[in-house]
């Protein structure tokens, strides 16, 4: 038995999505810019998908552009808005737990003369709207804050930040890759100007995503060419993938309540099962303001790569933010931002669920985890046995 609980890294594609995509590989091959029937067909498919994506986040379909995924959406949003607004100012505010595609894009913008302020989060990963407000100057042009974090699940006070940015006429970008399809998102109500989502996190194919660009917000394109996607993302549209993403949005819009409800009770079982039964085990992230599919912990005295490989031997696939698990040999910046020391971040474990995970799987994980943790602790010079 293989139990897959690494859905924040990559999620399975829904069979209904795959089915919807199939015809667009062979029989429906048109390019949306072509004038013939196949072209019209492709155009219709493209616009239907756009409508489905828009409706998931309460946007208008003309406000959606398709991209190659969350990373590209974040790049187009930040670079596009920064370049467009640079006459007004050069200051960007982000939080300390943004995705690397936001962090590194901002670093790059810094090299081009933009100033970036990183606002810290508390030990639960929550950002305080007042702290963001305190950093605003008359040169601030963009505030970028993720909707929720994929490593610790914490959901940010997006509506509050949105109201503030709208009032101050600052562009508000939200990376909603982890949150979309898991919790309700309403770009109108939250006053969001730019919002990134990725298809795979909605059980759609990889390599496709979308960026919501509120009508009236102007961006300078990063990708130039034939002017597709309102000129913001040139290049022939990847129709099969876009159709898949549209279908995934359609499904998840219908099923978000039952999906998230089911995952939330599995998550609760995972969290309670660990915190209630295991010593020196801690939840990372916020206890209640969290995504329904993210069970994230840290275990003292042991290291994450060892945990992951041991779980893998038992048929369980998960992930960690330990320094030993990545090429840079640096612990996850998210875990450091919530105040963990590197050796504490070492023992991090992330179990991220999908809509198909079962209670039986959860129980098997709960049985296996203590075996793994105990074995590794017995090997650890930091553990003295109690």
């Amino acid at each position, binding site marked *: 038995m293989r139990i897959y609980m690494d859905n924040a890294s990559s999620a399975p594609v829904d069979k209904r999505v795959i089915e919807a995509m199939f015809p667009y590989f062979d029989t429906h091959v048109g390019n949306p810019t072509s004038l013939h029937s196949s072209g019209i067909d492709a155009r219709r498919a493209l616009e239907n998908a756009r409508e489905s994506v828009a409706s998931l986040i309460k946007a208008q379909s003309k406000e959606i552009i398709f991209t190659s995924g969350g990373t590209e959406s974040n790049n187009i949003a930040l670079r596009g808005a920064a370049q467009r607004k640079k006459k007004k100012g050069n200051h960007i505010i982000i939080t300390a737990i943004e995705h690397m595609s936001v962090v590194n894009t901002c670093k790059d913008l810094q090299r081009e003369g933009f100033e970036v302020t990183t606002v810290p989060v508390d030990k639960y990963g929550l950002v305080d709207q007042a702290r963001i407000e305190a950093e605003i100057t008359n040169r601030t042009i963009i505030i970028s804050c993720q909707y929720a974090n994929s490593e610790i699940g914490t959901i940010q006070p997006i509506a509050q930040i949105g109201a503030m940015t709208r009032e101050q006429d600052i562009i508000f970008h939200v990376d909603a890759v982890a949150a979309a399809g898991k919790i309700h998102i309403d770009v109108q109500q939250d006053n969001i100007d730019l919002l990134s989502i990725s298809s795979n996190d909605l059980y759609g194919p990889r390599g496709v995503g979308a960026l919501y660009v509120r009508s009236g917000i102007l961006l300078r394109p990063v990708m130039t060419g034939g002017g597709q996607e309102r000129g913001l993302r040139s290049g022939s549209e990847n129709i099969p993938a876009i159709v898949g993403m549209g279908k995934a949005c359609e499904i998840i819009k219908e099923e978000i309540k039952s999906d998230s409800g089911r995952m939330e009770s599995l998550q609760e079982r995972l969290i309670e099962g660990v915190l209630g039964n295991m010593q020196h085990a801690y939840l990372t992230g916020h206890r209640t303001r969290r995504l329904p599919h993210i069970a994230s912990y840290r275990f003292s*005295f*042991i*290291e994450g*790569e*060892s945990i*992951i*490989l041991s779980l*893998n*031997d038992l048929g369980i696939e998960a992930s960690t933010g*330990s*320094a*030993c*698990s990545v*090429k840079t*040999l640096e*612990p996850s910046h998210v875990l450091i931002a919530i105040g963990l020391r*590197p*050796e504490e971040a*070492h023992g991090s474990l992330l179990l991220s669920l999908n809509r198909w995970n079962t209670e039986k799987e959860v129980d098997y994980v709960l049985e296996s985890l203590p075996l793994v943790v105990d074995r590794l602790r*017995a*090997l*650890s*010079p*930091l553990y003295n046995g109690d």
Partner: protein
Amino acid sequence: MDIDYSEKVKEHFRNPRNVGTIKDADAVGRVGNPVCGDVMEIQLKIEDNIIKDIKFQTFGCASAIATSSMITEMAKGKTLDEALEITRNDVADELDGLPPIKMHCSNLAADALHSAIEDYMEKQKKGELKLGENEYDV
């Protein structure tokens, strides 16, 4: 198991040899890894300059655990001078290689062993000194 670990690394990670501590150990070497913050401890029982028993404990990745397990096997039964000659490359070779990014973990194992032996030698020196003082006293 994931990552490009050799079968030997995986085997030592799954079934590490010589885990634990030694009661009345003659020497202890404890080192931390400056790169990623891991800790390794090696304890020795020494008779006639020969490593009679050796135990380790490691807080680190799979490769750190496998290299410490391997180095204890390699050092057991060796004289102190022989054991001091064991390098991180020897350990990695004995494990059929390590991914380049994981070479620093084998450093840790070699350092822990060497620091345990040095600890013993230090103690010996002090011991001799004490003996001398006693003779002087008499």
